[in-house]
């Protein structure tokens, strides 16, 4: 059945800059904002924009992502015609091959796209936090009669060299594109949201696949090549909240943004719900002994301790006398009694033993804003009365190391 527009979500990346958080799961599957996973934003944007055919390209650690997305019921993407399809790499002819780059991943799924014979293809990243109406971008694309439209957002000039930077002329047409330039000529950053005329993109993908020197990447190869070739390309300015959560710092910041009095990303907008896979847990319980301020807490949590300026995710437990501050506690983690957690990301299903101090400021590291973030990896068990220094990244069970840490504690005392 023919579709005007279909979406392809690139969800295969490892997200190596997130280190221990992506040890067992792909970046788009990382929990966010108390009850979501990062990919929920792209999937919800699709369905809220009326895009009902979505291919999700997975490669790195896809198990959780695959079972999480399933047949797309939570996003209303379980469709008779279209819906969500997980597209892992597969064997073709005698041998299989991995997705070599973002463009190559789309190239290898030309057959999937052709099945819907679309006029336009929307290419998305599964690792951005934003709410965006793609249907408006499509109208823009059509009105400009563009071959490709790239959504852009203004970033701080100091940060511009982290992004793909677009140089446009007055009518918004792209005259130059540089991926992570040292000396950016503008501050219009690519959001990794592209609409292509499928027939034109297909030609470039096939050419690119035949080029052994290419990195098979949209940002590095396809888009610069199209610009050089003089294709009609436009930048679509986006004004809302958008955040690339590719690093520990940006992931923490994006979560903390939700704690503002009126966050720029409005999760409470009933006409633009962010959907998620619901775990059927009872409501949260806030006990007599707790003090909760400026925080976001999700279903199934039990809070007996103090929570200040933090995100407490689905099914987490905060024990009595504990203090959680400026932190993200991911789903199912248990913080014991009399634990201090300070500026920390605690990944899923972690247990922190009673009396531990996580993110302890052992040396004077200056003001709170600049302090490094402490990260505790998934499924880790931290023994009672452990001390984890500020900025530490814990990626294995901490039991065996506690003796050393105890000495550190004694030394501190």
């Amino acid at each position: 059945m023919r579709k005007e527009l279909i979406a392809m979500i690139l969800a295969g990346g490892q997200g190596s800059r997130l280190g221990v958080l992506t040890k067992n799961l792909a970046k788009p599957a990382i929990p966010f904002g108390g009850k979501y996973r990062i990919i929920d934003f792209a999937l919800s944007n699709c369905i809220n924009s009326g895009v009902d055919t979505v291919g999700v390209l997975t490669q790195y650690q896809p198990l959780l992502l695959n079972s999480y997305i399933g047949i797309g019921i939570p996003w209303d993407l379980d469709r008779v015609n279209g819906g969500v399809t997980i597209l892992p790499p597969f064997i073709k002819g005698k041998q299989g091959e991995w997705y070599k780059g973002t463009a190559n991943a789309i190239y290898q799924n030309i057959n999937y796209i052709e099945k819907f014979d679309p006029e336009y293809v929307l290419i998305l990243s599964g690792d951005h936090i934003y709410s965006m109406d793609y249907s408006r971008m499509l109208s823009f694309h059509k009105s400009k009669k563009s071959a490709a439209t790239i959504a852009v957002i203004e970033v701080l000039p100091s940060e511009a060299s982290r992004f793909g930077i677009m140089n446009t002329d007055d009518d918004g047409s792209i005259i130059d594109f540089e991926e992570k330039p040292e000396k950016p000529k503008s501050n219009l950053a690519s959001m990794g949201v592209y609409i292509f005329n499928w027939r034109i993109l297909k030609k470039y993908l096939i050419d690119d696949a035949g080029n052994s020197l290419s990195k098979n990447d949209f940002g590095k190869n396809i888009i610069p090549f199209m610009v050089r070739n003089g294709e009609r390309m436009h930048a679509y300015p986006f004004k809302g909240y958008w955040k690339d959560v590719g690093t520990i710092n940006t992931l923490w910041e994006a979560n903390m943004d939700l704690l503002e009095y009126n966050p720029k990303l409005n999760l409470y907008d009933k006409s633009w719900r962010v959907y998620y896979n619901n775990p059927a847990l009872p409501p949260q319980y806030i006990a007599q002994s707790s003090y909760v301020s400026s925080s976001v807490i999700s279903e199934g949590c039990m809070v007996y301790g103090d929570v200040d300026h933090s995100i407490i995710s689905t099914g987490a437990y905060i024990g009595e006398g504990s203090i959680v501050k400026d932190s993200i506690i991911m789903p199912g983690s248990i913080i014991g009694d009399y634990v201090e957690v300070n500026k920390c990301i605690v990944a899923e299903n972690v247990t922190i033993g009673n009396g531990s101090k996580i993110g302890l400021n052992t040396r004077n590291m200056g003001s709170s804003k600049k302090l490094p973030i402490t990260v505790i990896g998934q499924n880790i068990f931290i023994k009672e009365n452990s001390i984890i220094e500020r900025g530490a990244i814990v990626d294995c069970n901490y039991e065996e190391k506690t003796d050393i840490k105890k000495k550190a504690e004694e030394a501190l005392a």
Partner: protein
Amino acid sequence: MNDVMGIIKTGGIYEGLKELTISRSSAAIPFGGRYRIIDFILSDMVNSGIRNVGVITQNNYHSLMDHLGSGKEWDLDRKKDGLFILPPYVTTKNSGWYRGSVDALYNNISYIRRSIQKYTLLSGSNSIYNTSFDEMLDFHIAKKADITVMYKKMDFMDRANLSKYGIIDMNNRSRIVDIEEKPKNPKTLNVLMDVCILERELLKELVEEAYSRGRYEWVKDILIEKFNKLKIYGYCYQGHWDYIDNIKSYYNASIDMLKSSTREELFPANRPIYTKIKDEPPAKYKGSSRVINSIVADGSVIEGEVINSIIFRGVNIKKGAIVKNSIIMQNTVVGERSELDCVILDKDVCINSEKRIIGQSNFPIALPKKMVI
């Protein structure tokens, strides 16, 4: 329990629940922050492995139907069996109105006949409990019973307070020797829980027989009528059970959820209670909030003070407001500096700024849906 079908009766009218049942049947009353009362029995059935459930509806069943939908949330949107909603209907033979639960069953006799399970679990829809019915079925089979009814020994209650229930007396082998419906002086402390197991064929026969004699009540016209002739056994339920038939019992059952022992019994990890999903974001506690000993559902935004209360999904407690010992249902707004104590606010109620509503714990004030104060 593959060989059991479930039937849930949701028909009754409860005068004592008036404020909460203006626009819905009692089974659809919101409960516990994100549930409706029917979620408990329906989830209990599903968690016991029952895959064929009929829900008999009568009064104001729009909101119940909206809640249940295709049964997707309970995993009952099946090709084989699944969820069947059974509202009254008019034919040449019936009036389009159920005269009692037996009449309702008779009108849906073809659903009962068409089902293929050997046993039927027949239940009301006013109970809050979390159980699996496997043991009760084993008991039923081991006793070679005709009917097994579940009961609760209310030894923690004064006998005089039991006269609103059905009361059973049993011999030492658990066989029922007497049943009283709403007795003035209850003979025992054994209260019927409005749930029983019997073979589907027997249910069909009993319903057809009672109907042919113009008798329409399950307890009065079948259980009481038959306990001499049939082997009716009592199966004792040990866990937490609340029966909701008036505002006070609703209030007490709700506030009881603030005890961790109650929450542990109602929400064990291996038997979740399913409900309709609303896709709410997490709850947000803004700067000046103070929350003590309360249950808070997702999607709510809390800026004021909440003490010993149940806050449902999407509720907004504004700055300076104080909510104590109260139950605040979905999407209700409590305005700035308002004060509530022992109050039940139904869905979509709006309390403006600086209002004060004070009830008593043994006489809570209930405000109906969409009221503006």
